[in-house]
């Protein structure tokens, strides 16, 4: 049975969450833009999660600069024995865990970089878990399941990050136009001049992030591949705690009460109707080269 991992929210009552594990998003080293936790908080929360007999995962998925390395190593020294898994995207973290000979604690989540069964297998060979890229069609996901001959891990619900810049784009704009608005660490939205969608944009001290205008939702299709899924991640960014807990319950029921998919999906839509299948049915384009193109 596929496990369910969810982001830990500050007000969460852990026992109410029908999940297998909690992801604690690090204030210091994750680029999660919901509730994050300092090292001290993370270590305390870890104990609470353990008491619930759940898996505890530390998210440290930011891109690490050379200036961050010393602090990162100190942070890892204090945490590597304490958590069951670590979500990362920077290879410095893999290097650290390889030195400790515990790469099986790693979950690689570079958002975009693992989009094929061959690439996935390359990580599995090293004993590293991977979250697949979010921009895959269902056909591709199914094919990856078939071809890699192993379990896969998927983010199945939530606003997807589609842009990660190190630049403080909102503060810079504010400064350039002397707006004097306090826009840092605030959920704003972005609208392209010719389009009607509003994309969440968030600037933190890690940089600027832009998200999909919809909540990606892989739901009924999940049942067709569930036997090949190791874990699913339900992304909690920009989702209210109360709603989030309900969403997690519905996924739990989906995996346990498979016959009620359409009813469950209706319930899911009642929580937030802004759901989309993203690229599941809509393959992105690889622009093949036109031989005559100059």
């Amino acid at each position: 049975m596929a496990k369910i991992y969810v982001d830990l929210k500050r007000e969460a009552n852990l026992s109410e969450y029908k999940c297998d594990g909690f992801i604690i998003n690090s204030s210091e080293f994750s680029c999660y833009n919901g509730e994050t936790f300092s090292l001290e908080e993370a270590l305390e929360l870890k104990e609470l999660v353990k008491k619930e007999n759940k898996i505890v995962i530390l998210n440290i998925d930011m891109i690490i600069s050379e200036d961050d390395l010393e602090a990162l190593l100190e942070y890892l020294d204090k945490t590597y024995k304490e958590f069951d898994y670590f979500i990362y995207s920077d290879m410095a973290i893999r290097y650290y865990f390889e030195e400790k000979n515990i790469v099986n604690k790693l979950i690689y989540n570079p958002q975009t970089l693992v989009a094929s069964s061959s690439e996935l297998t390359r990580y599995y060979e090293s004993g590293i878990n991977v979250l697949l890229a979010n921009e895959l069609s269902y056909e591709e996901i199914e094919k990856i399941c078939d071809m890699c001959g192993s379990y896969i891990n998927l983010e199945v619900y939530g606003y997807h990050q589609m842009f990660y810049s190190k630049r403080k784009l909102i503060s810079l704009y504010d400064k350039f136009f002397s707006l004097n608005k306090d826009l840092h660490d605030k959920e704003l939205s972005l609208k392209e001049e010719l389009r009607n969608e509003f994309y969440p944009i968030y600037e933190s001290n890690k940089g600027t992030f832009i998200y999909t205008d919809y909540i990606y939702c892989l739901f009924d299709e999940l049942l067709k591949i569930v036997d090949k899924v190791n874990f699913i991640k339900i992304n909690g960014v920009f989702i209210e705690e109360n709603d989030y807990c309900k969403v997690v319950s519905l996924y739990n029921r989906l995996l346990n009460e498979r016959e009620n998919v359409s009813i469950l999906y209706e319930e899911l839509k009642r929580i937030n109707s802004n759901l989309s299948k993203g690229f599941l049915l809509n393959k992105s384009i690889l622009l093949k080269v036109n031989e005559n193109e100059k």
Partner: protein
Amino acid sequence: MRNKVELLAPAGDLEKLKIAIIYGANAVYIGGKKFSLRARASNFTIENIREACAFAKEHGAKIYVTMNIIPHDEDLDGLEDYLLELEKAQVTGIIVSSLYIAKVAQIVAPKLECHLSTQASVTNSLAIKEYEKLGFTRVVLARETSLEQIKKIKEKVNAELEVFIHGGLCVSYSGRCMLSNHLTNRDANRGGCAHSCRWNYDLYDRDNKINPEGFYFNIGSKDLVGIRHLFSLLDIGVASLKIEGRMKSLYYIATVVRCYKQLIDKYYEYVDNSVDLKGIDLEYFYKEIGKAENRLMSIGFFDGAPTCNEQLYNIRSETPTKEFIGIVLDYDEKTNIATIEQRNYFELNDKVEFFGPTLENTETTITELYDENFTPIEVARHPLQILKIKVPFELKKYDMIRKI
């Protein structure tokens, strides 16, 4: 003997590749028809790549082939054969971001060097050590790395470091941008970038528009120019300085490559003779670049976190200050007649400037203009037309002419 830095230029086709090498590039990176990120660049066939390698070898230069697509399963057909062909063509190395492609290359075509693409967004030394273990001999650093950080990294790693010195900048970490894919269904990681970061946006705080009336909220970055930071990069000892722009014109490549080549040569000349580098007039090089550059320039992350000066705010400048009008095919010393190929409209009595790999900028006026059959004409209006002009100084094949 010290290892001199490699000047690495882009090329979208064979003609540009030859110009890049002739104008001073020590190496050129090109895209093949498969596995490359610039889907709209005129990418190279295997035959083209063979010819490119032969030309490069003749001129003591190297060829790298970009294979930095983030592959989906369907993109990987023919990978082994392609790698074998590259190795057979004597390509020096491939630039990749996929660990799978790198591994296959190491097995089936071990003579190919594996360079890690900037798509992997590497900004620290430990990550580089990890990639060293995975067989990469060179890492193209993320453009988010400052000079100070590059220096620290260089002291800790064995892999060669390649640093972008000039050209377009992604505002997102490369490889981590899905804007184009989500907004236009064109996947930037598979060669389809629609440059959505350069579009116009409005910024909202709930229902309130934040950007001032008459202005959009822009997130795009100005392009990179590394003239002021070049000597520091050479002091640090990076292996390769990379110019971005496989879609750029022949003229742009010639101008930019020549400019950096001259600066690099001056650096070694001054350092070898213990002459203070402050004596080099950098303004001259900025002006030179400006003759071909049509976009606003900035220093990117070289000095640390970008400021407002590095961002594009409702300002677009797309017109080069000088116009490229022709390329020299031949020069007859006895008659002082140059045979040229026309690239843009010009007229008799126009003031022009010649420049070349070894020719300093030299101004003159076109006093005699003929067609291919030596019939006098007054206007050169046909693209690629072969023309004859009288020029009172010696020219070489591949010298170029711009209007002033």
